[in-house]
């Protein structure tokens, strides 16, 4: 044990959200190395008691992952706690996820998880546990401008960048956030995990939605929603623009904009889902060229920085989307985006997120009407 004279002064106390994956594990280990006093926490968000224990591989929220997070915390010798967030997760992530599909939208549960759990519940825990900062394993960076204001910037790893999911963060707390791996690329993160002997070094990347796992979202919804409710979502597949009825379908929740496989019908040319009309349960299918649109309506915006009417921004309309240039026009409900190039498969329920020179400006929710 170091005595008080030789012990280096802590750079501050950090609460780090540890999912049991490699990214947040390395984030915690780097903070320890940098001289912070680190406290690890895992949010238990789902009841795994009925889960198959082999299911945990490669998703970010299984009980095996809690064990992994705990063993990393032991290895780097930091206090570690499991926070029970099941009720909050269900109310603010799972239920809206299901409702979005039942209303013909394509939900984005990771944003809700960040909005209501990681950057709300954990911010409160940060204060309660006397911490100076909250850290996560997101691929994102915090930068300071000439006025010493903190901003969120994209990660150096373009492929992994997760700032798309962070647009609802309260600008007041940005200066309290640390993203210790945001300046690294994934292979480097794995190398660090390996070098530090963390059990998670070779763990599969989490892909898809953590609580859905490998079963697919349609099976997840079937498990969670009564067949009686699902049967009210049945309707027709119609050809755009003629309105010709192509087939009956088993529910609008089984379709997403841009989908061309598994439409439940055969046709001599390839057709795509263009639009889902939740009021009539109609799924409109048509040619790929009709998937493109130049204008996108965005509502319920959150801004981390001032947005200027009539200015051009880089905009992402889905997570794995290469940002495209668009002019912003402010509207009563939010903004209208006018893209330079037409955008393919703009899906209501997804977010439109704005950047300027890699700096996250904010974003909102894409809507049809």
């Amino acid at each position: 044990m170091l005595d008080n004279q030789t012990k280096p002064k802590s750079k501050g106390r950090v609460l780090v959200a540890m999912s049991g994956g490699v990214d947040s594990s390395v984030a915690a280990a780097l903070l320890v190395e940098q001289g912070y006093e680190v406290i690890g926490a895992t949010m238990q968000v789902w009841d795994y008691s009925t889960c198959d224990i082999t299911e945990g591989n490669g998703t970010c929220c299984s009980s095996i992952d809690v064990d992994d997070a705990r063993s990393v915390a032991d290895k780097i010798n930091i206090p570690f706690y499991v926070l029970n967030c099941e009720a909050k997760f269900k109310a603010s992530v799972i239920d809206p996820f299901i409702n979005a599909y039942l209303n013909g939208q394509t939900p984005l549960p990771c944003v809700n998880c960040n909005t209501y759990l990681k950057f709300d519940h954990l911010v409160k825990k940060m204060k309660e546990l006397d911490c100076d900062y909250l850290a996560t394993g997101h691929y994102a960076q915090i930068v300071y401008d000439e006025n010493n204001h903190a901003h969120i910037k994209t990660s150096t790893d373009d492929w992994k960048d997760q700032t798309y999911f962070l647009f609802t963060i309260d600008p007041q707390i940005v200066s309290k956030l640390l993203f210790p791996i945001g300046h690294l690329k994934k292979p480097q993160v794995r190398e660090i995990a390996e070098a530090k002997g963390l059990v998670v070094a070779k763990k599969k990347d989490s892909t898809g939605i953590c609580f859905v796992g490998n079963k697919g979202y349609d099976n997840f919804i079937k498990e969670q929603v009564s067949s009686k409710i699902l049967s009210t979502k049945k309707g027709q597949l119609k050809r755009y623009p003629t309105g010709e009825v192509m087939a009956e379908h088993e529910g609008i929740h089984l379709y997403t904009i841009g989908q061309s496989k598994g439409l439940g019908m055969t046709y001599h040319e390839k057709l795509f889902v263009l639009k889902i009309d939740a009021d009539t349960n109609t799924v409109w299918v048509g040619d790929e060229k009709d998937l493109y649109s130049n204008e996108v309506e965005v509502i319920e915006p959150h801004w981390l920085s001032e947005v200027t009417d009539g200015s051009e921004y880089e905009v992402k309309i889905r997570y794995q989307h290469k940002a495209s240039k668009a002019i912003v026009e402010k509207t009563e409900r939010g903004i209208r985006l006018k893209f330079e190039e037409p955008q393919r498969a703009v899906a209501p329920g997804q977010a439109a997120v704005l950047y300027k020179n890699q700096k996250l400006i904010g974003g909102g929710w894409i809507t049809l009407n």
Partner: protein
Amino acid sequence: MQNHENPTPKSRVYLDHNATTPHSPALKAKWMEFIEISGNPSSIHQDSRIPKTILRETRQKISDLLSCSPLEIIFNSGASEGNSSVLKSAFNTLKETRNEFLVSQVEHPSIIKTAEYLISQGAVVHFIPVSKSGMIDMNFIRSKLSHKTALVSVMYANNETGTVFPIKEITELAHAQGALMHSDCVQLLGKAEVAFKELGVDYATFSAHKFYGLKGTGFCYVKKSTPWVPLVHGGGQERGRRGGTENVLGLAALNVVLDEIKNCGPKISEMKRLRDLMESKILSDISNVSITAKEGQRLTNTSSLVIDDVDGETLLMSLDLKFYSVSTGAACSSGNPEPSPVLLAMGLTRAEAQSSLRISLGWGTTEEQVVNFVNTLNEVVTKLREINLEEKKKENVG
């Protein structure tokens, strides 16, 4: 940066003695001597002599302490094993004539879960209500007891609230109907001085780690001629009642600790003095705190608090980071921090159960520790309440 210069103790302060206890200093002193003992007590050669002696002496000391015959003691791995064995023994031997059980609602999961298993096997189980003040419903017991009752199982004292139950009276009721009586006595030794024999029970279960011994060591009292079916079949150990080579070192440790149990009266009184001091200081220093089941008879070391507007889980973490080990409920359920089923069964609301904190003192607890603890608790509760208030204001504005 925030100020973390709050006065924290130099080393950790352990106030969770109902979950487990530290090893007794006398035991630690003997440890290197014990580690030399490796013979199998069942062997015929001379290497079995010392292990055999340890078993015999320890069994004798227990029977002296409980005023029973050494033959009535079965060594095992602890009270969870003991509790499962007792319930299953009564069911398996009596089910043809008596298949009903009475079990209190606030029992340890090793009783509740075994009872649920017995239900799946055809038993009828009546769960005896316990009130918020800690009173067990004697009328319920009277009304459900019948010639069909196989066994009544009520713990000596509850691990979460410290409530002590009237085992002697319940035993008399059970016996009057020809039913067997069991008591989970894990919270008895080292925490209360009781003439065990007067309880009159047919079965009692104990764990050494609850009174300064080792984990994985325990014993079961089974009154002569009472039904018993081994849970573990094996090489005839414990007169065929529990198979498996005996936990010799655990029993050697138990042997040492039992000497201290014999003379622990003054320690129990001191724990009571400190617990009462702690409670009166908490009630005078911190607003909106209540003590669960304070009215009834309680263990002298236990205090179960409801601290309004504070989340017990967060409070526990905050205290942990300030070097104090306490608990929000039973240790078995932490890691899956749901409100304590025991407190809910006693009629506390979900909010009250989630704002609960259990403090359990031990033989080594000092007045200085208790006073500093209350000061730290006050400081943490004040801070957490301020944050809650801020959040509520924000929500109202937003």
